[in-house]
């Protein structure tokens, strides 16, 4: 089961609470300041295409912890994991 998150860099205030709760340690601190002068949190697998993302499971603990509703969470659903029959036969 794979997932990913999107962190709204402008909304994030760099409180880093999400970093502490991610079971896979997939969030760190960005080097670029946002317009308010915070170093926002950064999803490490941010730039990998979905297919190569492996660690984030979309558990959403980061989003639950985030005070500023700055994180949106996506998770692969069951049918996305088992590609449908035609795809299998190819």
């Amino acid at each position: 089961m794979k997932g990913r998150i999107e962190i709204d860099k402008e909304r994030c205030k760099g409180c880093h609470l999400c970093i502490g709760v991610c079971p896979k340690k997939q969030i760190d601190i960005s080097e670029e300041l946002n317009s308010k002068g915070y170093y926002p949190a950064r999803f490490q697998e941010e730039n990998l295409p979905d297919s190569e993302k492996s660690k984030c499971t979309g558990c959403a603990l980061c989003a639950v912890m985030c005070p500023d509703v700055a994180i949106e969470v996506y998770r692969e659903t069951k049918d996305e994991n088992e590609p449908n029959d035609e795809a299998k036969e190819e």
Partner: protein
Amino acid sequence: MKKVFSRPRSLKETPFHYCPGCGHSVIHRLVAEVIDELGLRERTVGVPPAGCAVLAYNYFDVDMVEAPHGRAAAVATGIKRILPDRVVFTYQGDGDIAAIGTAETIHAANRGERVTCIFVNNAVYGMTGGQMAPTTLLGQVTTTSPQGRLARREGNPLDLSQMLAVAAGSVYIERTSVTSPKNILKTRKAIKKAFLTQLEDKGFSLVEILSPCPTNWKMTPSEAIRWVDESMTKFFPLKVIKDAV
């Protein structure tokens, strides 16, 4: 991939003005999530306090009326009595509800007003810059208890929730915190139960939520949540204080 977590509908897009790591922000989201889950957005009236959370009316996409400092429970009483089939909640800090608003809150509870109070306890007056509050802990230094709160001089931290539990009209009172995903989800469950207590016309409900205030405690957000877990819960243990639903 399916989106499994996003902003609740009852929360406006407006970014919070709250400090980084402030508990108000999380609690706003939880109240909005419960309002969405129970489908109450269009029949809810919220009563924010004077304090950091006065600007709650900029964030909740529900009808909101600002109450004078401490008087939210009385304003809510006035609204609920006129509109008994609407859902009315107050959102108050510890200074608002347990200092200046003690009488209004105790009497609303005693009358069993069908309103829900969200009591955010961060042990200081936040908006005004970190003064001592009724819930400031013994030994806790604030701008108006520079040597640390002394029982002999400033009295002990006031446990309003326990006091309210004595009032017959209060039906459901729980104290939770927002220091971890687990505690946050427990807080959401408590808020939901409080709203249901109101919806089922059982009586007065209140959820006290221990909440970090990094700026005024002069801590980082992570240190603040640890302080809540290790120090605040000693005076204010997390538990269901009353459940007569």
